[in-house]
């Protein structure tokens, strides 16, 4: 019994390690590749570099364009998060607190964004953004992104707001506190966990978005980091080590952010998914 148990455990760990190496090997090769000369990458894609060349990493870190790409992305994502949280929470609050004629219909209307992919409307979006003169500005990314995030945000917010104790509102109401003030003073501060979950999700989505910036941004000054990375790759087609160093440097903030926000990412993922 115990021997079978041991054997099974060895098997299990062995299999886990096998899959883990399938997952990690490409990333490891990427990180190491940034230290190698191209000749060395050619002969050993996996091995440790013969000498650790920091120059490729250094040259990217010293390039103001790299930081500008990251800065642009940070700005766009942050504004999208703030807008989504405020606008989405305000609407969800109305749906949770106030019953009025047509509220169910408007709620369903706002949830329609959950049903279809962003890409379906990308061409008219491009035309619209161009016609209002927002092409090549941050707003061209921020506003559509916020609008598309609203559906999920409103759905999650409303569920959460409805679970807040009703007595609280009634007490505040008796004391003469109005709806709008109650929203600012009580609902928002009490909803920190759900705000964080949705905020993290919107942030990640916006930070990684590729299609929308690709369509509406043209000049390098406003590029987000995925666009900057593709641009960089295009410039150094034959120099894999530079591209790999660039990719590695963009992995770092993603992983740090994930480790910091892991709780919210996993909670949002599983909570949202399991509830359907």
């Amino acid at each position, binding site marked *: 019994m115990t021997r079978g148990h041991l054997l099974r455990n060895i098997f299990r760990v062995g299999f886990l390690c096998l899959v883990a190496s399938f997952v990690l090997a490409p990333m490891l090769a990427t990180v190491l590749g940034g230290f190698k000369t191209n000749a060395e990458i050619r002969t050993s894609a996996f091995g440790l570099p013969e000498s650790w060349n920091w120059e490729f990493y250094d040259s990217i870190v010293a390039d103001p364009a790299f930081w500008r790409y990251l800065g642009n992305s940070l700005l766009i994502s942050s504004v999208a998060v703030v807008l989504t949280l405020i606008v989405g929470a305000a609407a969800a609050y109305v749906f949770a607190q106030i019953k009025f004629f047509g509220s169910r219909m408007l709620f369903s209307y706002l949830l329609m964004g959950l049903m279809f992919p962003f*890409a379906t409307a990308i*061409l008219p979006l491009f035309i619209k953004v161009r016609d209002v003169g927002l092409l090549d500005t941050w707003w061209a990314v921020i506003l559509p992104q916020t609008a598309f995030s609203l559906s999920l945000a409103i759905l999650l917010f409303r569920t959460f707001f409805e679970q807040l104790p009703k007595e609280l509102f009634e007490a505040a109401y008796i004391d003469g506190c109005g709806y709008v003030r109650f929203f600012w003073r009580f609902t928002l501060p009490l909803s920190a966990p759900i705000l964080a979950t949705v905020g993290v999700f919107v942030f990640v989505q916006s930070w990684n978005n590729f299609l929308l910036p690709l369509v509406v941004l043209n000049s390098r000054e406003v590029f987000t980091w995925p666009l900057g990375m593709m641009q960089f790759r295009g410039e150094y087609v034959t120099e894999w080590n530079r591209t790999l160093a660039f990719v590695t440097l963009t992995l770092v903030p993603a992983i740090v952010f994930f480790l910091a926000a892991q709780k919210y990412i996993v909670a949002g993922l599983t909570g949202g998914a399991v509830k359907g």
Partner: protein
Amino acid sequence: MATAAASRQLSASERLRRSIGNGRVSAVLILLPPALILFTLFVILPLGESGYYSFFNWNGYGSPTDFVGLENYQRIAGHSIFHKAIGNTVKIVAISLLIQMPLAMVMALLIYRKTPTNALFRLVFFLPYILAEVAAGLIWSFVFDGNYGVTASIARSMGVESFFILADRDWAFVAVMTVIVWKYFGFHMMIYIAALQSVPEDLIEAGRIEGAKRLQIVRYVQLPHIKPAIIVSAFFAIIGALQVFDVIIPLTNGGPSNQTHTIVTYLYTYGLTRLNIGFGSAVGVILFIAAITVAVFYQRVFMKGDKP
């Protein structure tokens, strides 16, 4: 509750005065419109315009005047590359259901219990999911590079002539699907893990006492219990397959000879880069109909009785 009763005892006129004074109406008028305007302007209106533009032959400049009826749709329906894109999307769905989800399930069953080692493996398997698709695509375009890549090294060390997988008509899409499995199985695994952790321990214990084997417990206790999670994860896999774009661009950009297009890369390539706004919009409409069909079908078949 006591305060609720008190407020109910207020006279009707008092309640009316309060409801106006406390801004019930103005609350609706202040808090709701920003969401409605943003959503209408940037989601619903463009969607409607997609439908409208799809009936025109239009390059995006001036206003659409060259009405062509259903010609765009006919051209799409007869376009072999579009057929390829649809076929590839179906392949992604198949790979997701047949390889990715079972793999995710096996991993979930192996590490769903809360131990430090399991937490570490969970983190590792979830890692690809948090990377940007573009970054994942670039990493794997290096792995598959016939000159410098990892697969090339492996091939050379085995004494085989290395070749450019991503430039091979038959193998390029296999490579793309490998990347998709690599990127997303951790996501499905996390869904299963959360569900498996909610299976009552007594049920499993009871099965064990009755002498059920490990596999029997999986088959008769755990899997039935987490069926809703499996249904949801399959839904994400199908909807996700309809949207694949970011990964393809750095990997193959739709090539070689248009073998690896998906619906969205097709839309991008033939609609936007060539400024065939009418044609591209028609592709968008088809994508929309596909997504809605999947959603409605899914709700009818699998989620019946879940919601009132």
